[in-house]
């Protein structure tokens, strides 16, 4: 609706065609190893990085990535068109949520012992920029809702795709991402970390 008002949502037919074409490609992937292999090659790194950022270590990310693609294969018969990337990241999102849920008791113990502080020290930010740790540490400063959206953005998804993955309205995604990036800018510049809630 908003897009239409802004005058950029004209290619409805094109989008429909694109969705049909993607559905056709995925249908082909159900029975054609090469076709699925192409999907895998295309999305592996994005899914892996997303899992890595969400879970924080390589082993967990590899396990989650394996699970995502396994679920994708098993779920192909139920794929009903639309953005394949959205569909795949929705699976990834659920896998990561489940992984967090399974690890929660351990996290609670760690937090209770006071051994971790998610806030990055300034020197860490400077030293760790090469391997992404600094950014991942910064993401810790976001609310869960903001972080979900920003991480999917960093994985390369568009706004409508993120909305589909998270089951939210595009408008809600816009708000969360704007606040998330604004907060990240503040964190980078050393501004005071204040809770700013979400809409």
């Amino acid at each position: 609706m908003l897009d239409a008002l802004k005058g950029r949502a004209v290619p409805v037919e094109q989008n429909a065609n694109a969705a049909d074409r993607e559905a056709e490609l995925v249908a082909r992937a159900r029975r054609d190893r090469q076709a699925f292999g192409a999907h895998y090659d295309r999305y592996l790194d994005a899914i892996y990085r997303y899992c890595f950022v969400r879970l924080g270590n390589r082993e967990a990310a590899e396990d989650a990535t394996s699970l995502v693609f396994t679920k994708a294969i098993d779920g192909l018969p139920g794929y009903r068109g639309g953005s394949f990337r959205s569909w795949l990241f929705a699976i990834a999102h659920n896998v990561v949520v489940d992984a967090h849920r399974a690890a929660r008791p351990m996290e609670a113990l760690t937090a209770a012992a006071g051994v971790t502080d998610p806030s990055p020290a300034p020197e860490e930010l400077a030293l760790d920029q090469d391997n992404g740790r600094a950014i991942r540490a910064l993401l810790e400063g976001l609310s869960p809702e903001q972080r979900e959206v920003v991480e999917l953005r960093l994985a390369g998804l568009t706004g409508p795709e993120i909305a589909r993955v998270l089951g939210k309205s595009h408008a809600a995604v816009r708000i969360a991402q704007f606040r998330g990036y604004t907060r990240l800018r503040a964190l980078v510049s050393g501004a005071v970390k204040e809770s700013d809630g979400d809409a």
Partner: protein
Amino acid sequence: MPEDAAKLMRFDDFLDALVGEDSGDTADLDPELVEAARRLHAAPIAASANPGFASTLRRSLLSRMETADVEVPAGSVLRAALMPSTRMRPSGRWWPRAELAAMVLIVAVLVSILAGRDGSRWSPSGPDDGGFVMSPGTPAENTGGATSTAVARSRATEAPPPEECDVEPRSVESLRELSKTLVAGQWWDDAALSLRAEGAPADEVTVNAIAATVRELAGCINANDYLRITALQTDEFVKYGLGEIRIPIDDPEAITYATPGPPVSESDRVAITVDDVEVLSSGRARGRVVIRGSTISNTYVYIFERVGDRWLIDWVSQVENRTPTLTPTDATIRPGDLVFVSDNAVNLRSEPSTSAEVLQVMLAGAPLLVTGDVVERDGVKWLPVKDLTAGTMGYIGSDWVVPATSANNSSATTTATATRVPRFQAGDAVQVTTSGVPLRAEPSIDAEVLRRLAVQTRLVVVGPEIEDGVLVWWPVAVAESGERGYVLDLFLE
């Protein structure tokens, strides 16, 4: 709502463009916010997936996918998929599974038999290949001169009876243990390398020992004894077989019920012979193997590895109708040529070396552009190439590509071109199907990249398609900016 809706939408548009590797419209946005977002997206957030993990997972998934929808009663899987018998017919849903597993030795035999069965009875054919059969009898029988060779040759084409299968069988438990671990990544590399590595003719002792292995293999197939068949294979090859055809290894009864089954009837037995045996620098051996059954004769390249006191089968590659010796194709390939990957799971490496980093695992049919001259290293002829799908530059073994314009397929290409109807016409609105698609100044893969287009960037076709070999280019204009250039057909919809 605390934030201005228009501002939220502009920022959303900007981020959409940013993830599409476009610059995006930043008008009226906070410059500091824009810069922070750009820096955030430009910075590495995590390393790529480990190449070993990626390729292992890929193989596992493709195997799973190939068999995921196959519904075969567990107890019948082994018998149906592995054992050549008169009960098996290419009907029902398990047949694609057998086709898949044609790379696996045992299933290759199955396919051989089924593919050639026409209801007629099998008559063992004579040595009709003119020197093709190479004395595959037992060592004791093949150490003599012309007479013993003739005897051996005669024996070679006989289908060995089940009694000749007396290797100690693997246990069900050992197979279950093997199924718990994935095939070693190094094994894949070694197997692929073994198919094209230079070799030296094997001595007589080696030839005879390998011939004894394949003869016993035929005996075990004729005995319908899966556990003994796997005893003639290396652990890694067994693991590969278990993974590829997804034997229900967790159900011990599936195996115990299925093997050994009743021996195949005498008319359905197979004979297996080997020739052109070469020893490779890795210590492995390679030979051309022919499996004869019923009315057909299929040829394979086998790789053997010495384990203990005998040679075991480590890899099978179906030759089909090609010449058994894998002929390098680089003689006809020049820089600028378009080639296609000729097999699945071929590594694209960062350097012309088998120890170099694997940048990408290529599938058969992937289009590559040759970017330079052949480099010979590690006994392999490497082609510098660019993957036209992902844009990755690297090196690939020349034996694993086929030229797009070779004499073999030129007529097919011509036919395809003549009958193909252009997808678009001037004035059509199209869009880009993936991120980072290059908009080029000229309709050539070597032309300057004017900019990279984001996914779903809207374009307008401004002229007829332009063919460049097997590539098709469209002259387009970017809808929003009017910028003109050329985009490959495969990136448009």
